């Protein structure tokens, strides 16, 4: 609606001619180029919609064909290409050589940390602290299958009792009660003897009776004094570290039904370079020998 141009009496400025309850709006015109810049941004947005995938329609990728998922794949490929020389060196080296070379070691520690979080932490914990119930701690100073770089490398590569590798860590504890080798009182006596190895026996007579049974049934793997045997994956029984619990009930349960933890063979799943990095990383967690 065309309106009359009025001058505001106070400021001497033109009004827009719009009036609300006696209030008149002063006309302070914007520069035209400002308006054109605004139109230019709209035009830019239209061009953008054509070139880039801006419409929520499957397959509408825009004329440039740019897809976020492909960009990620490209980025990953670039990162892998950047790491390739280092990875081939890590593949060729032994864990000992990696641990001795500061450059390789720094790379292996960083890569090992990531690989550990991806593959190992779900059972062994974020810092390798393990968990009660058969997930050994990798940060303490006891190892079931050995804590040298070679032993760790072998265990990671071939796994434990997973039947995925011919060289896997393999041993089997008998189910002493379930298979009728020992009676229930005998199991109790053996458990008392095992407790006595760490001076925790509650019934000295039972422990003495159990000593004979222990010598007969357990010593072959766990050793005379319960010192364990890493070749057989038989844990030490005369220390403070208990994989399935230190209390008598847990020990009775272990003797009665046996325990057999399982770890997959990672040699089939991971790049040898990553296994080397994991070996060096796990060795550094605090228990490396």
């Amino acid at each position, binding site marked *: *609606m*065309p*309106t*009359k*141009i009025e001058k505001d009496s106070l400021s001497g400025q*033109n*009004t*827009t*001619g719009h*009036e609300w309850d006696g209030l008149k709006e002063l*006309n302070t*015109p*914007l*520069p*035209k*180029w*400002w*308006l054109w810049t605004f139109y230019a941004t709209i035009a830019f947005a239209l061009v953008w919609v054509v070139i880039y995938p801006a419409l929520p329609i499957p397959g509408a990728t825009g004329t440039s064909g740019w897809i976020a998922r492909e960009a990620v794949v490209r980025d990953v490929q670039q990162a892998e290409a950047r790491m390739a020389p280092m990875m081939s060196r890590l593949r060729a080296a032994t864990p000992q050589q990696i641990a001795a070379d500061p450059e390789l070691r720094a790379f292996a520690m960083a890569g090992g940390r990531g690989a550990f979080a991806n593959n190992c932490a779900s059972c062994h*914990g*974020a*810092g*390798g*602290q393990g968990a009660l119930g058969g997930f050994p*701690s990798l*940060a*303490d*100073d*006891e190892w079931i299958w050995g804590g040298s770089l070679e032993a760790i490398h072998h265990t990671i590569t071939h796994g434990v009792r997973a039947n995925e590798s011919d060289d896997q860590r393999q041993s089997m504890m008998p189910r002493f009660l379930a298979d009728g080798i020992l009676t229930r009182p005998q199991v109790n006596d053996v458990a008392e003897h095992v407790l006595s190895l760490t001076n925790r026996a509650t019934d000295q007579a039972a422990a003495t009776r159990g000593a004979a049974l222990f010598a007969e049934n357990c010593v072959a793997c766990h050793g005379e004094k319960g010192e364990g045997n890493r070749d057989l994956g038989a844990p*030490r029984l005369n*220390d*403070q*570290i208990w994989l399935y619990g230190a209390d008598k009930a847990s020990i009775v349960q272990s003797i009665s039904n046996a325990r057999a933890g399982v770890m997959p063979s990672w040699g089939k799943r991971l790049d040898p370079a990553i296994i080397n990095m994991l070996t060096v990383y796990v060795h*550094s967690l*605090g228990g490396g020998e």
Partner: protein
Amino acid sequence: MGEIKTPEKLKPEAAEAAPPSLYADRQRVYPKAVFGKVRSVKWAVLILCLALYYLVPWLRWDRGPGMPDQAVLVDMTNARLFFLWIEIWPQEIYFLAGALILGAFALFAVSSLFGRLWCGFTCPQTVWTDLFMFVERWIEGDRNARMKLDAGPRNGAYWSRKVAKHGAWVLIAGATGGAWIMYFNDAPTITRQFFTGDAGAMVYFFFALFAGFTYLLAGWAREQVCVYMCPWPRFQAAMLDENSLVVTYRDWRGEPRGKAKADGVGDCVDCAACVHVCPTGIDIRDGQQLECIGCGLCIDACDSVMGKLGRPKGLVAFETLANLSASAAAAAALPPGPQRQQVGMDARRVPRFIRPRTIMYGAALSVVALVMLGAFLMRSTLDVTVLPDRAPLFVRLADGGIRNAYTVKIVNKTHDESPLSLRLEGPAGLRMVVQDVEAQGEGHYPLARRADGITQYRVFVTAPPMAQLAESTPITFRLLDDAGRLATSQSSAFLGPKP
């Protein structure tokens, strides 16, 4: 429903005009050359600012081998900010924030005392626009010649001048963008690489960005940046009051305007010299305006006219609004003439520089400056951070002992690489082992440290079996220099099971 009656005043008027446009064409401004005191000061400030900007990257500062020898350098690749002898790490970026806060308070304080000094003299928009106008005047001539050229035919003379002007502008803009990238790269190296094409896409992008916007803002947009884009003119009104120095027209002396020889008129001869020199194209005689950047060129223009007429200078001057009203009140009753001039000028007082507003800005400025100075003097060049392992908090060992693991980071901001000796202070019985480091003597580990970098160690602390320790025991790691003096220390905790 009855008929809706249109209110009388909203009915179309008889003599209808087209509605006013909400968008305005740009009114070209052709500032005229001006000479005088203010202009001289402006030239000096312009030369100083531009010289600083273009030459500072070329200043050298020896920092020893392997370190950049550029006095002022923002090293993005290595995340360091070099300023003469100061080297700022990313975690100390609060020094930059502090400098900006300092700058803001300084700006507030100066504005409340002296008005728009920043806008009129030192703002990069003003400085580069001034430089571009100087080039324009040199190639196309002064105000009248330029107006004639633009209004005249598009002939060879027109195009040759325009091409020469824009060519010169592009060169200056290029030098501006070029100097910008020198603050982020070694100046001699990047200059060579820039011309051989080895400088990298990022460098060329930022060069083009800064060169392009210099050309656009100083060549084309000019006063429109101040009038339409810049937020500062909008809120600086909060800093100014009637005791701030601003560029003012002494209307009590100038009005009524009239010819120089006419009787009963004020000193303003309405020659419009002040309007012709104004870089934002306003008339200062209209009073205080948002568009006025306070550059004071109209003062020079008016002073030279008054000088020629043999009248006192200062019809347009840096003056406070308080003095302006005082003069106006004193001179109101008198007719135009030397007596009115005398009475008006005598009514002025020395501006009140000390007032609550300036005291508060000054206090804020001092507090920030003191905090910055304190933070800088207490800035450590050697930090040790101790991060205890969180998973697991502690490890039970086969013999029943308890072990904690820590990551010890030595942040060395100097170039001293001499090893530091790490010692553990805590309850008797705690033993410390540093992974991959051989102990020298009892519980004493020499730790190498990288110059200007972070070195990281993994430290194990073990409590013997049956040690009677609380769930959390305070311990302290101490780093001693080779003379056995304490370099730095960091306290931490040794954690164990609930006793």
